[in-house]
Structure formats: C-alpha cells, structure tokens
C-alpha cells in the first residue's frame, strides 16, 4: 500500500487532495469571518443611538430587545413631576436617584433618571428649565415595588405607576448619560448595570465554517479508503475498471 501511495498516479491524487484541503480550510475560514462580521454588524446596530420615540412607541409596553439600547431625546424637564427614588447608594454612599420626566415635542413624557445625589436638598436636584438634548440608555420599569404610590416626592422604584405619569408617558425610562447644554450642579450619572440585549447568532455561517473544515478531514478519509481499495483490488484487477 505504501509503495502504491508513492506511485506517480497516487502522488498526483495526494497533491489534488492537499489542494482540496487547502481550499476547504480557506472556505471554512471565509464562513468563520462572515460569522464574525454578522455578529459585529448586529452589535454595531445595537450600539447605534436611536431617538427614543422611534424605539419606544407611546402606549406600547417596552420590548426586551430595546432594553439597554442607546437612545437620545430632546425636550423640556417637567420639574413639577420630579421624584426621588430613596435608598439608592453610589460607591457605598447612601443617597437618592433623581427622576425627572422629560416632555418631548409631541407632548409625551419619558422618565429620565438623571443621576445620584446624597440627599434631596443637594444643589443638583433642580432640573434645568431650558430645552435639553439628552442621551442615555433605555431601561424597563423597575419591577420591584412597582405599584407602590409616592410618599410626597419619594418613590420606592421607577415605574409609570409609582411616578404617576399618566397615559401620555412612554413605558420605561432613560438612564441619563449626557445632557446638552451641560448644567451644573447636576446629579452624578449612575453607570448602567443592565446588560445589553443579546444579538442572534449566525448559526448558518458558523455551521458552514465547521462543515468546510470537516470536509477537509473527509478528503483524507476518502484518499485513504480509495488507496486501500486500490491496493487490495490490484491483487485481482478485474473489478477495477469494469464499472466505468
């Protein structure tokens, strides 16, 4: 069998097999790159900033795919509806979160968690009265203590019910990242702890990559089987060519 493998005919076949294997490895690599590209494109799509009214239609509950998306909004803070979420600490210091609804140009409201302050009397608590453009991360209503009513200006959790924003409010809230124009003093932005929504995995490209690589193993198997058959058939050569 070994002597047969080094015959001219079988060396040519081995060479062709190696070429096939190299080709298959490249094709698998191409599908692997494609898998990565699709994932990168999907993640970039998620990271892209979208106006909140496009992502979060009025009167509809927030969908899980939009939670964690970067959003922008333009409007005016409604200081009269501002609430403080109590018992929220930042870096180990106890304090409150300042939640001020933002009124968009269409009149709808979206709650904005502007950040952390040590207490309700801290100077940053007063929201700017000018038109602002904000960016932030879209979040779903906090589910715990969701329905508990406000105690004066204190609330236990951020939700449309607890903030009593009414029917003109969009679901969920924006966790503020930036505000233009910048006003000082202001609450300290609280970093996002919620994870970004996951993107669909391109299984098809992933499996194609794996299959191309398996095919290159397959080439080796076929070569060996063929060589074995050739070596054993040549002892009684009648079978070798009668099928063709």
């Amino acid at each position, binding site marked *: 069998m070994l002597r047969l493998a080094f015959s001219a005919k079988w060396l040519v076949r081995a060479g062709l097999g190696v070429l096939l294997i190299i080709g298959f490895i490249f094709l698998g690599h191409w599908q692997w790159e494609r898998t990565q590209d699709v994932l990168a494109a999907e993640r970039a799509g998620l990271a892209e900033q979208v106006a909140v009214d496009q992502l979060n239609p009025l009167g509809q509950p927030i969908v899980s795919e939009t939670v964690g998306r970067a959003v922008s909004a333009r409007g005016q803070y409604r200081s009269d509806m501002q609430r403080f979420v109590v018992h929220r600490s930042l870096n180990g210091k106890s304090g409150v979160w300042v939640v001020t609804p933002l009124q968009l140009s269409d009149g709808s409201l979206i709650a904005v968690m502007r950040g952390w302050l040590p207490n309700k009397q801290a100077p940053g608590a007063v929201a700017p009265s000018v038109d602002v453009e904000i960016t932030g991360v879209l979040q779903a209503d906090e589910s715990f203590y969701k329905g508990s009513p406000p105690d004066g200006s204190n609330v236990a959790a951020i939700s449309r019910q607890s903030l009593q924003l009414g029917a003109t409010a969009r679901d969920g809230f924006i966790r503020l990242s930036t505000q233009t124009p910048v006003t000082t003093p202001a609450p300290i932005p609280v970093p996002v702890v919620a994870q970004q929504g996951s993107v669909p995995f391109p*299984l*098809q490209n992933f499996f194609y990559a794996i299959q191309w690589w398996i095919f290159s193993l397959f080439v080796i198997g076929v070569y060996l089987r063929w060589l074995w058959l050739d070596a054993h058939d040549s*002892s009684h050569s009648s079978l070798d060519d009668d099928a063709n």
Partner: protein
Amino acid sequence: MRSHLSSQNWRLAKLSTVNKIAGAALRYRIMAYVTGVVLASAFTWMVVLIITWMVDGYAFADFFSSNDQKPGLYGALWIVHGWAYFLYLIVGVDLAFRLRYSIGRTVLILLAGTIPFMSFVAERNVHKDLAKRAEPTSLS
C-alpha cells in the same frame, strides 16, 4: 485470494457483497431524498423571498448582503441541508466505492446534493445502474 474459497463460501461472499451494496444503496437513496427535499424546499422558499423582496423595491443582491428579516425556519432549513449534505457525502462516497465508480461519476453524484432537484436525478441514475447490474448476465 478468491481462488482459495470453496465454491460454497464464494457464493456466500458474493451474496454478502450484494447485500452490502443493497444496504449502501438504500442509505444513499434515503439521504438523496432527505437532502433533495430539504434543498428543494429551501431553494423554492429563497426564490419566493427574493421575488417578494424585489417587489418591495430591494435589489437582488440586497437579499444576500442583508443578514436579518428572514424567517427563522428558512435559515434552519439551510442549516439542516448543510448537515444532511454531510451525511449524503458519506453514504454517497461509500456507495461509489462499493460500485467502483469512476472519479468523475462520483464527483457528479456528490455535487448533485448541492444543486436543487439534482440529487433526485442522481439517485435515479444510480438505481437504474443497480437494476442493470442485478440482471443475471452481469452478476455471473
């Protein structure tokens, strides 16, 4: 090697070879149909989707460059075809070796699993060939 076998053993050996070919042919037939049906469904669905996309004003190439907005089951069909074709390759090569097919014919049979509706044609071709071989003259 065969000359050492007694006539009875030789008959048994031949019979088992025939049986092995019948088994391999059955495996090949199953995989040719499975691969063919899945590929035909995925391909037909793709044609329908492309037509709907183009009616909606997308370019032909948009269908292939875009990664979203396709039904989940549609993508799943292509994945199933990928793995079915892998099995098709194995049983196809196995049968081609047993029948001592030429490399050209083998490659054509194997490629038939990737071209819509062609695996049915290849399977028919193989079974015609087997029927011809099963005639008494070619077996003796």
